[in-house]
């Protein structure tokens, strides 16, 4: 199909029944705050906005202090961070759409508007960092790595009426975002470059709200869930862990061994040693393990019981 003159003929579409295919019915329209803790997150995000253009001390970045190899590795690292943040711009708005279509508490829709803007800021700042280090890189150097960083099907799952929202939030927010948040906390400890560290902190501040959203939501609904629904949530989290996180979405050293992932891991090591923002297997491993254990502990009182997970580089968590 050709949608517009300049569009590649390779642009394909799929015919699929989704939540979009229900007639809109927005009335009665309510904006009561049914989840006040989430409304407060929206208000807190409104108070704490920042701008990558003006709130980062870019003049303190001295690329010339680093070797060519370090700059290249850091370019790759910050470009990969930008791709990852972009995923939330491209796919997570489907959650906001679903909140509206399902008449979920308006607090959720309102919070997600600013969450998407925060993801845009993150992508913008990561791109700007890569640019200042020598240039943003538009795609993985080796195509094999695309599978680890492209998409984990959030949009598709979210628009599927058969996939319950509760499972998506438990997997995407309470699991994947929680892991991302702990990685940022860890990066704050190991990053020495002042600008890289400032960026990490600014992103981390937003991510803390993103994670809180997921837990506030789960805590608010857990008493209403049946055992079967809790099992479904468990399965969603297990899939996220096994197919996405343990496949290297946030941590390249967890990606399947191949020349592409080895190149990414090596770039991370050079970036880490330069103090420009990445981390490496030996120091991140205990952080990752602790995060998974914490998520398991936090879900247990909600009636969501996660099994042990295994990975060749981690053993059984």
């Amino acid at each position, binding site marked *: *199909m050709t*949608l*517009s*003159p*300049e569009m590649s003929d*390779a642009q*394909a*579409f*799929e*015919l699929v*029944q*989704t939540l*979009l295919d*229900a007639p*809109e019915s927005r*009335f*009665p329209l*309510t*904006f009561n705050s049914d*989840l006040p803790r989430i409304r407060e997150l929206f*208000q807190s995000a*409104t*108070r704490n906005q920042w701008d990558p*253009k003006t709130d980062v001390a870019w003049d303190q970045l001295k690329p010339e202090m680093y070797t060519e190899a370090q700059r290249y590795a850091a370019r790759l690292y910050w470009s990969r961070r*930008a*791709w990852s943040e*972009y995923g939330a*711009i*491209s*796919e997570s*708005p*489907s959650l*906001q*759409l679903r909140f*509206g*279509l*399902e*008449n*979920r*508490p308006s607090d959720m829709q*309102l919070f997600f*508007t*600013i969450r*998407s*803007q925060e993801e*845009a800021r993150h992508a*913008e700042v990561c791109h700007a960092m890569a640019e200042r280090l020598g240039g*943003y890189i*538009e*795609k993985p150097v080796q195509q094999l790595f*695309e599978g680890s960083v*492209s*998409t984990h099907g959030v*949009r598709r799952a979210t628009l599927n*009426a058969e996939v319950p*929202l*509760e499972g998506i939030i438990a997997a995407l927010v309470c699991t994947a975002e929680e892991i991302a948040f702990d990685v940022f906390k860890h990066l704050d400890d190991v990053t020495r470059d002042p600008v890289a560290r400032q960026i990490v902190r600014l992103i981390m501040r937003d991510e803390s709200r993103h994670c809180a959203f997921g837990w506030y939501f789960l805590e*608010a*609904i857990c008493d*209403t869930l049946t055992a079967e629904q809790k099992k479904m949530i468990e399965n969603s989290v297990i899939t996220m862990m096994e197919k996405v996180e343990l496949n290297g979405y946030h941590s390249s050293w967890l990606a399947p061994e191949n020349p592409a992932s080895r190149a990414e891991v090596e770039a991370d090591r050079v970036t880490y040693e330069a103090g420009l923002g990445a981390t490496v297997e030996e120091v991140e491993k205990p952080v990752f393990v602790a995060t998974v254990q914490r998520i398991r502990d936090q879900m247990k009182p909600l009636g969501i019981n996660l099994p042990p997970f295994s990975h060749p580089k981690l053993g059984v968590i």
Partner: protein
Amino acid sequence: MQRVMHRVEPSLPPSRLLIERRFPLQMNVTLPEIRELYDSGKAGRWNPYRDIDWNALAPAQYDEAVRQAARRVWSRRLWVEATGLTETPALLMRFCMETDREIDSKFYLTVRNTEEAWHVECFDRLAEAFGGRIAAPADPAYQAAFNRNLHRRVMDAEQHLDSYVASFAAFEDGLELELCRIWRSHATNPVVLAVLDRVIADKERHAAFGWHYLTARAPRWTAKDRATIAVELIEHVRDTELKGYHCPWLAPEHAAAEAAADAIAADAGLGGAPRAAEEETLATYTANVREKLAELGIVLPMFESNRMRAF
């Protein structure tokens, strides 16, 4: 709190969704005017809780009939503004799913959506202050004007994206801007003025986005593209504007209560404008749009309605 899982039953034909090809992921500026809107949106950020002196609204100074009218007016504005909470995320995803669309628009739309959320907060607060938000139109038949399924439409692979932007970003957001300006010119309440000042500043960017985008894309359009855009604009005016979506006096058969409330609130300086002023705004705005579209090679015809002069 008791909540149950909600379930939406799809009953329309399956959607045709584009399959995203994410890489190469271009992030450099290619549409500087739109990047500037994104940057100015960030720089112009505001806070509905902090930046409006809500105590100055003093609703008790108005009599009951006026308060009830204002309540209905701001509830209807809320019904309109709430569209963005589902439409903008869908439009953003469509930009991301379609190959080679520019990052500047994607970044910009995230800011637009936050601004829409702040407008929702303000309009809701005004409606609540005047007696409580009204959850639906007085006449159920008027609901159809709001249930436009725009989120579905924009995600549909067959929907021409530039044409969508022409109708719903350029034309519609531009009209909302002009209506806000005319409401502001008739307002006297300090809180209503402050809210409209903020909303107008945001909507100036919303409308500018549409026109900047069309201007950037126009050199690529074929005659068929231009015809598609013209047809969809005509449909928009016929099926949305003339059905009273923005101006309820255009649909007295369904929106008489809303039109009457608008007149009372306008007279009290609470954020409306007399019918004649809105009619003039709609006619003048459409004439200006017609000229701008002609520069892009799009012919917009005159519209006739038995509710207002030809425009």
